[in-house]
């Protein structure tokens, strides 16, 4: 329990991850699914950023000749977050474009309803 309070950032990230995950899995509405996807991905980035930061240290840019490793944080988690954001932006864009196409055809955002319409269509 104590750990949970100290690592409140990570705990929040995990809760957000579960919220996003279940939104993406369970919602029928495509837009809400995409929102869930973004919450889920952001939660992971929050987790990474939270893990990557050590209180009291600074960005790894040498100023005033301070070269001690103890003074700086590792920049790689931040780099990973950036890479991850690029990936999640592109999958969100792809999902949104697919949603638009489905909406134009079937005039609904409800995935189950679309499936029923497709069954009626036959083919």
């Amino acid at each position, binding site marked *: 329990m104590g750990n949970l309070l100290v690592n409140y950032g990570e705990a929040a990230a995990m809760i957000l*991850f579960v919220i*996003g*995950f279940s939104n*993406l*899995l369970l919602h029928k509405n*495509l837009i809400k*699914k995409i929102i869930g*996807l973004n919450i*889920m*991905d952001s939660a*992971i980035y929050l*987790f*990474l950023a939270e*893990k990557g930061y050590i209180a009291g240290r600074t960005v790894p840019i040498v100023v005033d000749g301070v070269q001690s490793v103890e003074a700086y944080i590792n920049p*790689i*988690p931040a780099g*990973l977050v950036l*890479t*991850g954001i690029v*990936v999640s932006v*592109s*999958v969100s864009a*792809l*999902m949104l474009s*697919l*949603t638009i*196409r*489905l909406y134009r*055809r*079937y005039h609904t955002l409800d*995935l189950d309803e*679309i*499936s029923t*319409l*497709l069954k009626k*269509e036959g*083919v």
Partner: protein
Amino acid sequence: MDLVQNFPFFSIMLSMFSGIVSPVLPPAAAKWVNRAAVTVIGALSLVLLLYLLGTGESYVFMMGHFPAPWGNEIRAGVLEAGMALFFCIIMLLSLLGGNHKLLTEVAGEKQSLYYILVNLLLSSLLALVYTNDIFTAYVFVEINTITACGLIMIRETGRTIEAAVRYMIMSLLGSGMLLLGLCILYDLTGHLLMSNMREQVAILAQSGEYHMPLLVTIALISVGLSIKSALFPFHAWLPDAYGYSTVSSAAILSSLVSKGYIFLLIKLIYRVFGFQVFHDSKIVNVLFLFGLMGMIFGSLSAIWENDIRRMIAFSSVAQIGYIFMGIGMGTQAAMTASLFHVMSHAATKSLLFISAAGLTDASGGSKKFADLTGAGYRDVEAGIAFTVGALSMVGLPLFSGFISKLLFAQAAVQNTGKLLPALIVLGISTVLNAIYFMKTVIRIYTPVGDEVRSRPASGGRALYVAALMGFIVLNLLLGVNSQPIVDMIGQGLGMFA
């Protein structure tokens, strides 16, 4: 450093660049660029494979000039080079075999777009096979997902778009879990390169420190990757995606995309967690159970299915179940069997999809069983090819499916705890396979009276038949000449450790 050692890097870059130039080329040129690229990459992989078999040890290739704990790396061993070669062969044959359908099903100006997707897919598969860095692996997993989604929906109908959306949703759930698992693992070990992570994981496992987070990581990564490769309870998207997309896409998706993830999982098991640590976590039992369930329920769904393409798709669910059963058995022999089945299933399933396309074309484009009666007489080559594929899936000697079943059974005997369930389900699944495949074969060879050979007279016919023959030869090669391949897989797994 030998020139040959650059080949993995060349392969990835070559496929990526041919993808980049494709959109500005006319469709016919894009097609030839793609075919040339796949052939060249296949040849490079073959040379690399021979070189590695010669030296007998794997090597690490530095990307950029930063040494180990910081830089990005590629690693090549016998298994990696072999898989790359195999992926190229399957991809080339699938594209050749599905070419005539692609021309009719995909609008003219979109055909060059198709080749961007195929090239990028190949580059991401190669990167998944060769990379030694887990975050690079994650990025290429996502590229793989996006291109696979494009392959599904390039033939634009309501069905395919819906299938693409469902595929994306399941896939993204899987990538989310994978990414979270990789992040926690990075947090635990402090490294991104597989070899460095392995050392740290071994230390953690020995001291028992962070036991729970390590288990959670293993679970997240295994489940994430098995969702993406359509293991049984997560397969809802699969029948539509394979059943309605254009036939090359279906062949590539079923035989390459899902296999790329499985290969990555096996690589992570050996190169990051270590076989023993993975085996000691109870997640192997979960994978084993899901695999067994997939073998039965996939086959049952296939029996109830009334659409030949969807039936073949459901059979994929069962076959993925076989592979995960092997991973779940947790012995070296079972892992070899799984890897052999990855190859055997890839060779057989793409053959089935491509030959089913010929059969449905000969039946007025209908995929329903009632209309397929006698299709084997109307399109003789496709009928023969389908029969070969079906016999291989059922597991008749001479064909590749028999060898994988034999290897699975041998591996099961070594693992006493899982012997009984594995053998029983293997038996049931074989019978179920036989029911639906033999039902189809009998159906296509039931005479209807007016056997007019309505073979399409287009020029694409020779190419189609050549692709079918290529698949049949590949199947027989895996079936008859299996021992060297099994030895090679064993050697490759040895290099993993």
